[in-house]
C-alpha cells in the first residue's frame, strides 16, 4: 500500500469504505481541498460485465507484454532497455488495473455480502416476529382450549331440571326475568336453589337421625323387658305339662312337634300330617313322632353362602388331605360318592301301631334326599314274651315282615325310575344290597308320603296329600292285619311244633269229633329245599311260588302211613291261602300227580278257604287246613279196601268214619267232605 500511497499522494485521498460521506466530508473539511474519493459510488457505476471484459483484456495485454518482454529478453535485451521498461511500465499499469479490478471485485463481493447480510437480518427479524406471533397464537389457543375444557365442579352436581326449577324455586332465587335470557344467571340461580335444598334436607336428616336413635333405645328397652318375661313363661309351661297330660290335650307336645316338623322334608311332612290326622279321626291306637337330629336338619337348609364357605373350607381341607394321603384309591372316592348319594335326612318319623293284645308295630320312616324316596324299617314289640318256636323264626323277621303288603311290592328295588341313572354314575348295580341298611322302599311308603312315580301302574293323577290320604286307611288296616296275622301264626307254630293242632271252638264244627291221624312234625324249609322236592313241581310250573314266600313241611302220620305236606305260605296270609302239596308214603309212594284221591285231598285243603278260614279276620286258616288234612287222611286210609299183597288179613285201618259211598264218579274219588251235624262224609 505504501507504493500506492506514494503514487497517489498528490491529492490527499481519503478512502472511506463505509463511512458516510458527510462524516468524511466533515473530517475532510478540516483539510483544504480534500477530494473525497468514494470508490463505492464509482463501483455502482461500473458494470461488472465490462469489468470482466476489461480484466480479460488486461490479462491478455499483460500476457502479450510479457510475451514481448520475453521475446526481447530472449533476444538479448538488457534490463534497462527502454522497450522493456516501457513494457514494464505498461505491465505495471496493467497490474494496477488488475489490482483495481481485484479491489473492485472484492468490494463488489463485500457489498454483495453486506446486502445479503442485511436482507438476512431483515428476514430474521421478520421471522422472529412470525415465530413470536405463532407462539402467541398457540399459547392463546391452548388457553382457549383449557378454558373451554374447564369443568367447573358445578356441572357435576345433578341439578333439578329447568322446568322443575322454575316451578319449585321461590322467585327471589329463580329470578325468571333475568335467568330466562341469561344462561349464566340461570345456572347460578339453579346452583343457589340446589344449595338451598341441600341445606334443608340436611336439617331433616339430622332430625330424623335423632328420632331414630330415640326409637332404637325404646326398642332395646322393650326387648329387655320381653326377654325377662321368657323364663317366667317357661316356668308356667312346665307347670302346665302335668295338667295337659291329665286332660289329654298335649298342646305343648304338639307345638314342639310342629316346630320340629317345619324342618322335615316334604314327603315326611305329608306323612306326618296324614298319619296324625288319620290317627286323630279314626284310629286311637296310632301315634306318630319325629326323631332325629334337628340341628343337622337346620344345617341342611342353611343359606347357600354359608354352605359355600363350608365347601371352600372343606375343599381346602380335602386338598390338604389329598396331598397327604395320595393313596386314596378311585374305589374309596366312589364309595364316598355312593354314601353321599344314599344319604338319609337326619329327621325320621316313628309311627306306632298298637294292637288290641298289646303288641306294637313300630315303623321308622326315612327320607333319602338325593334319591327322593322314602324307606321304612320295622320293629315289633310284643306284650307277652313270644315262646320260642323254631319254625317261626322268619315270621317276625323285620327284613321281611312287611314284604308284599300289596301284591308284588317287594321293596327290593327303588320305585323311582330316575334313580337308575343316578346309580349308574356311582356304580351301584343293585339297590337291594343297601336295603337292609337303609330300609325298604315299598311302593305304599312312597304313596303315603305323597310321592308318585311314573313307573307305578295307576295314573290316578293324585299328588301329595290327596294321594297319601287315599291310601292311608287301607295301608294302616293292612299293616295291622299283617302284624296280627304274624303274631297269631307265631302262636300257632309254637303249638304245631308240639304236634298239637290248635282248633278254636268256632271251627270245631268243620271237623268230626274223632280224628286219629296226627301231626308229627312241623318244620321250616328254604326256597331251595322246596324247589328240590319232587311232588311240588306242578305248583312251581303254575307260577304260584315266589322267593318271598315262606315254606314249611308238615308230616301227618297214622300207623304205617306217612303223609308229607309241603306248604307255601304267601306273605299276604291270610288274604292268600297257603298252598299244600301232598306225598303219601304207604305201601309205596304216591303223590297228587299219581293218585287222584290225593289230588282231591289237595283240592279239599287248598280250594275251600271260605269254609276253612274261620271267624274274621281268618287267622285260623292254616291250622284248619292242617286239621282237615288229618281228617282226609283218616278217610283215605280207612276207605282203602284193596289189600295189595292179596292177603285177607285184618285191615290196618278199621272203618270208623261214616261214609255213604266210598267211590263215586269216573275217577272213583273218596268222600272227603264232612257234613255237620250229621257227621258223615260225602262227595262234593
Amino acid at each position, binding site marked *: 500500500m505504501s507504493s500506492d500511497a506514494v503514487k497517489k499522494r498528490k491529492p490527499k485521498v481519503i478512502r472511506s469504505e463505509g463511512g458516510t460521506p458527510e462524516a468524511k466530508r466533515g473530517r475532510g473539511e478540516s483539510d483544504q481541498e480534500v477530494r473525497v474519493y468514494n470508490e463505492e459510488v464509482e463501483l455502482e457505476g461500473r458494470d461488472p460485465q465490462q469489468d470482466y471484459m476489461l480484466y480479460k483484456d488486461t490479462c491478455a495485454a499483460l500476457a502479450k507484454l510479457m510475451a514481448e518482454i520475453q521475446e526481447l529478453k530472449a533476444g538479448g535485451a538488457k534490463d534497462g532497455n527502454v522497450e522493456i521498461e516501457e513494457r514494464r511500465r505498461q505491465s505495471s499499469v496493467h497490474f494496477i488495473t488488475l489490482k483495481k479490478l481485484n479491489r473492485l471485485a472484492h468490494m463488489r463481493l463485500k457489498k454483495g455480502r453486506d446486502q445479503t447480510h442485511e436482507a438476512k437480518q431483515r428476514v430474521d427479524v421478520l421471522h422472529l416476529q412470525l415465530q413470536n406471533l405463532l407462539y402467541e397464537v398457540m399459547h392463546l389457543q391452548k388457553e382457549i382450549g383449557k378454558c373451554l375444557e374447564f369443568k367447573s365442579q358445578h356441572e357435576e352436581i345433578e341439578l333439578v331440571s329447568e322446568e322443575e326449577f322454575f316451578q319449585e324455586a321461590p322467585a327471589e332465587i329463580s329470578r325468571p326475568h333475568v335467568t330466562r335470557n341469561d344462561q349464566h344467571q340461570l345456572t347460578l340461580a339453579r346452583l343457589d336453589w340446589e344449595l338451598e335444598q341441600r341445606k334443608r334436607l340436611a336439617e331433616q336428616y339430622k332430625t330424623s337421625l335423632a328420632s331414630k336413635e330415640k326409637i332404637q333405645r325404646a326398642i332395646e328397652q322393650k326387648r329387655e323387658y320381653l326377654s325377662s318375661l321368657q323364663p317366667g313363661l317357661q316356668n308356667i309351661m312346665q307347670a302346665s305339662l302335668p295338667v295337659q297330660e291329665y286332660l289329654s290335650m298335649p298342646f305343648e307336645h304338639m307345638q314342639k312337634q310342629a316346630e320340629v316338623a317345619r324342618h322335615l322334608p316334604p314327603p315326611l311332612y305329608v306323612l306326618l300330617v296324614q298319619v296324625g290326622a288319620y290317627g286323630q279321626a279314626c284310629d286311637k291306637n296310632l301315634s306318630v313322632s319325629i326323631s332325629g337330629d334337628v340341628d343337622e336338619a337346620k344345617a341342611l337348609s342353611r343359606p347357600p353362602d354359608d354352605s359355600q364357605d363350608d365347601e371352600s373350607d372343606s375343599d381346602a381341607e380335602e386338598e390338604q388331605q389329598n396331598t397327604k394321603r395320595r393313596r386314596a384309591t378311585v374305589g374309596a372316592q366312589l364309595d364316598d360318592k355312593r354314601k353321599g348319594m344314599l344319604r338319609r335326612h337326619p329327621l325320621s318319623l316313628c309311627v306306632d301301631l298298637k294292637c288290641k293284645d298289646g303288641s306294637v308295630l313300630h315303623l321308622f320312616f326315612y327320607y333319602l334326599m338325593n334319591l327322593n324316596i322314602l324307606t321304612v324299617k320295622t320293629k315289633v314289640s310284643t306284650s307277652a314274651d313270644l315262646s320260642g318256636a323254631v319254625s317261626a323264626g322268619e315270621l317276625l323277621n323285620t327284613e321281611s315282615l312287611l314284604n308284599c303288603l300289596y301284591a308284588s311290592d317287594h321293596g327290593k328295588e327303588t320305585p323311582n325310575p330316575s334313580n337308575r341313572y343316578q346309580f349308574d354314575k356311582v356304580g351301584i348295580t343293585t339297590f337291594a344290597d343297601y336295603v337292609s341298611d337303609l330300609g325298604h322302599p315299598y311302593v305304599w311308603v312312597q304313596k303315603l308320603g305323597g310321592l308318585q312315580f311314573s313307573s307305578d301302574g295307576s295314573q290316578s293323577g293324585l299328588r301329595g296329600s290327596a294321594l297319601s290320604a287315599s291310601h292311608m286307611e287301607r295301608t294302616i288296616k293292612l299293616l295291622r292285619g299283617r302284624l296280627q296275622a304274624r303274631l297269631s301264626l307265631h302262636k300257632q307254630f309254637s303249638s304245631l311244633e308240639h304236634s298239637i293242632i290248635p282248633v278254636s271252638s268256632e271251627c270245631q264244627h268243620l271237623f268230626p269229633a274223632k280224628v286219629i291221624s296226627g301231626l308229627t312234625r312241623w318244620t321250616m324249609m328254604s326256597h331251595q329245599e322246596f324247589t328240590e322236592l319232587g311232588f311240588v313241581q306242578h305248583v312251581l310250573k303254575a307260577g*304260584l311260588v315266589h322267593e318271598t314266600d315262606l315254606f314249611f313241611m308238615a308230616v301227618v302220620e297214622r300207623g304205617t302211613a306217612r303223609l308229607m305236606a309241603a306248604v307255601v305260605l304267601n306273605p299276604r296270609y291270610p288274604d292268600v291261602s297257603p298252598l299244600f302239596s301232598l306225598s303219601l308214603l304207604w305201601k309205596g309212594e304216591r303223590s297228587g300227580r299219581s293218585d287222584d284221591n290225593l289230588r282231591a285231598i289237595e283240592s279239599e285243603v287248598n280250594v275251600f278257604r271260605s269254609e276253612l278260614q274261620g271267624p274274621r279276620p281268618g287267622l285260623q286258616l292254616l291250622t284248619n287246613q292242617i286239621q282237615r288234612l288229618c281228617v282226609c287222611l283218616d278217610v283215605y286210609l280207612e276207605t282203602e279196601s284193596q289189600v295189595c299183597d292179596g292177603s285177607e288179613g285184618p285191615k290196618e285201618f278199621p272203618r270208623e268214619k261214616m261214609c255213604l259211598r266210598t267211590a263215586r264218579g*269216573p275217577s272213583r274219588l273218596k268222600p272227603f267232605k264232612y257234613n255237620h251235624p250229621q257227621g258223615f262224609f260225602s262227595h262234593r
Partner: protein
Amino acid sequence: MGPVELLHMSVFSQSFSPCGRFLAAGNNYGEIAVFSLSAALSPDASEGSQKPILNFTAHDGPVFSLLSTDTHLLSAGNGEISAWSWAELIKKSTKAAWTRKPNYETSLEIPEINAMIISPKDNSLIVGGGDNNIHIMDMETGVFKSVLKGHTDYIHCLCFKEREGEILSGGEDGAVRIWDSRTNRPVHCIEVFKYEECARPQFGKWISCLATDSDWMLCGGGPSLSLWHLRSMSPTSVFPLPGCQREAVFYQDLIMSVGEGPYVSHCLHGGTVKAQIPCSPSSLNTLALNLKNTEHRVMTVGGSSHQIDVFTNFSYRAFSLSF
C-alpha cells in the same frame, strides 16, 4: 277261576258239536266250556283262540258226561240231565232247553250220572250212574220209561250195540252186563275180574271203560284192558298197560285208550301196545275223536288238568286248549 282253582281242575267229559267245529268240555266244578276248533286250528291261531268262547256253570256237581245229538248238547250233572241247544251255545246263550231227573230211590245222597248214550233206533237216552241202575228216557217226550236193575255197585260206563240192539254196562262191581234194549232184560253178565288173564287184584275189580265194534268188546279198569269176542264171551287179547284205563275207542285198526298215566296208548288188536303218546295232564279221563268233520279231524283228551290236549296228527300232541 283263580290260579289255585285251575290247578285243581279236572276235565271229565267232552263232546264235539254236530258240525264238528266246536268242542264242549265239562269239568269237576260243574262248568262247561265251549271251544272253537276252527279258530284254534286256523293258521293264524293265537293264545286267545285256545281259550273257550263260552264258559258257564251248568250244574252243581261235576259234569261227568257230555253227549251231542244232532241239535243239542246233553250234560249230566248231580243226578240231573240238561240239554242245551248247540245253536244257542254258539251264540253264547246259556239257557238250558230242558233239565230232567231220573227217578231215584235214595234220597240221602244225590247219585251222579256217569254215562249217557243214545239209542238211535227208538230215539231214547240211556243213562247210568250212582244209583246202580240204568234209566232209559224217551227223547221226544222226556219220560223215563224204564229202569234196568242188576248192578250191585254204581255204573261207570255204557255202550250200545246197534246191530243187535243191546246195551252193555260196566260197573264198580266188576261186572259187564248186556241188556236187550227192546225187552229191557239182562242177557249176559261177564265178571271180568274172574278171568285170570285180565284180573289185577292189586287194583280192584271195577270196569271203567267199555267199547264195542260189531262182535268185539273192549273193557278195562281195575282189570287190564282186554279185547273180548262177544260170541264166545272170552278175552282174545290182553293189553299190558300199567295203569287203569278210563276210556277206550276203536279207531280204524287201532285201539286208543286213556287212563292213569300221562299218555295216550295206541294198541293193536293183537294185544301189542304200538305207541304211548305223552300228553300234559298227569292222568286222563276222557278221549274224543272228531270224525264228523273232515277239516277238523282231531283227537282231544282231558284229565287231571285244566288243559285239553289236541292231537291233529294222532301221533303227537299239537297244542292244548285251556279252561
